[in-house]
């Protein structure tokens, strides 16, 4: 099998996570924000799998499965919220939904 040093896998996870974060902070459209979140979750999962693979243990994969489950749950609720926001504000701009300001 491959013999790539572990840290390169982790670096890939870090880069993906940072990109997701950038997207999250930059985009105003809710759909894009959710997508960025997916990227970040996926990157986190990647880091787990890399670590698990390094020791040849299944635990990393198992945590990835949990992350996957969570991502699915999050996306389903998130998208439902997107629909609600769109209905209520007639826009996908998250800044429009800033009613909880102090």
């Amino acid at each position, binding site marked *: 099998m491959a013999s790539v040093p572990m840290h390169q896998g982790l670096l890939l996870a870090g880069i993906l996570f940072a990109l997701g*974060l950038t997207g*999250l*902070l930059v985009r*105003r459209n809710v759909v894009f*924000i959710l997508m960025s979140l997916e990227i970040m979750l996926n990157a986190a999962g990647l880091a787990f799998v890399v670590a698990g693979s390094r020791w040849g243990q299944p635990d990393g994969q198992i945590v990835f499965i949990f992350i996957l489950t969570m991502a699915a749950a999050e996306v389903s609720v998130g998208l439902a919220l997107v629909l609600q926001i769109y209905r209520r504000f007639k826009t996908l701009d*998250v*800044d429009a*939904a*800033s*009613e*909880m*300001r*102090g």
Partner: protein
Amino acid sequence: MFHLVWLIPAFPIASFLVLAIFGTRLSKKAVPLFGVGSIALSAVVSILIMFRFLTSPPPGNHYTQILWTWVDVGGFKPQIAFYLDALSVLMTLVVTCVGFLIHLYSAEFMQEDEGYSRFFAYMNLFVASMCTLLLGNNLLLLFLGWEGVGLCSYLLIGFWYRDPANGLAARKAFIVTRVGDTAMTMGLFLLFDKLGTLQIQDLMHQALLHWAVGSPYAVAAALLLLGGAVGKSAQLPLQTWLPDAMAGPTPTSALIHAATMVTAGVYLIARTHILFSLAPSAQFAVAVVGAATLILAGFSALTQPDIKRILAYSTISQIGYMFLALGVGAWSAALFHFMTHAFFKALLFLGAGVIIESLHHEHNIFKMGGLRKELPLAFWTFLAAGCSLAGLPLITAGFYSKGLIIWDTWSSAQGSHVLWFAAVIGVLLTSLYTFRLIFVVFFGEVKTPVHKRPGLRMMVPCVILAVLSVVGGFLDTPPFLGGVHSFTDFMHLALPVMTEGPAGGMTEILSESFVTLAFLVGLYLAYFFYVQKREYAEKLTAPAIGKALHQFWLSDWGMDWLYERVFVRPIIWIARVDKQDFVDNIYSGMALLTEFCYRGVRKTETGRIRWYAAGIAAGSIIFVAIVLFL
């Protein structure tokens, strides 16, 4: 017989309860029935006890009746118990009998007042407290009575509560006496701490056992008790409340502020005489206080225009004599003067009450005059009491009692010639202000017409007291005038005999002659200034120095002025400034700081998700950085 002693305070207490609870519903006739009747019963019991005490004295000349144990904690075991000996029997007798006469007088005097029943309730409570004070066998019970009489004094001075001035006078009286009481409580703590009991006889016994003469503890305890006595008996420097206390109804002044309560200090010192014997410096302080007070109050009395204030200063001055006597160890002389003083001073106040009532509540003696013809009975009784006060030689009680004190001041081992001289000057002053009062009020032309004449219930007590003011003195006379010693002998059942010192060329007859001389000089001066040449009296106060002195004495040597500035105003100032409580500012400050922070932080609460996300991200990145690089 002696076991009935508990009835003496019990009757007035019961009557107080009846009057306090049902007072407003009782008829005008029923109120004095309770109010006066209860005191009459007490007086009867005390007379019986006195009689029994004289005919068949109890073993050891004292008797204790224990009702119940008040408190029993860690060796502190005061009881509700009454102690009878010559001292307490005598004083109780005087208090109840004079009290009865004054109550009888009040039954008519206060008849028209809306607070008729309230008045009697307070008066009865007073008699009960006073008897408790006198009879209590321990200092704590004495203190109960002590505070009780103070309370009644407060209530009665402020009896006509609608006038705020009365309220102020009452408040002053209560607070000033409580200053003394604070010292007294400290004294009680000290005594208990060192001697382990407050039961008076035990205490004295223990003191003798544990303390040598001049022991600092004894001095401290005696001085602290003196503090209490000074407050209650209106002696220097706490005398300022008594003249103001004249705002109360006149019978109150007669009973509380002349005959009985103000002599509680005398009783206290006499009661704890062993303690004072162990502390000669404290005892000397008693004498000095007495002498200074009698002179200062005498001067103040000279200038007062208000009839009751004259009598008040006179009371202060006469109690000064008693303190002087206590201070030189002439215990029985002090008590003798207490008794005669109770008679004539009560009578003077009652007489003043008659005058004031008949002249539309006029207090100023210079608006009175010529009452000799208008109120003859009042005049003669007042004259009898006045002569007794001034010490008219040979026939009045005052002469004998005061003469005895003055002679003892010279002859006692603890006496001194300076004190003797002060006492003789005091006689002159007494004579002067007494006859000034009598001449101005009863002689000359009528200035205010008499509108009301006193009835029987007011005059009978006056007459009885007038008789007592005269004959009371024959209980104890100097050797050259019969040498009766019945009073002194009786007192010696409870109090030690005075130790004589070197006479130093003075004899008792000489001393009495000086007293007589001083009396005559005072009488003549009063006659000269207030009957013969009234205008001279005014001329005396015309020049600046005379006016200033007059003003100074009128204001009681400026003591009120001083206290007002040193104590009263600072406290009021602090209380007013700190009304909102400085300490709260600390907590308000914390609250304000929190709110300030909140106002800052709430700005970050924009409601924008991305902003929050950025915050979370930045926060975690910084946190990781901290972990990594620090």
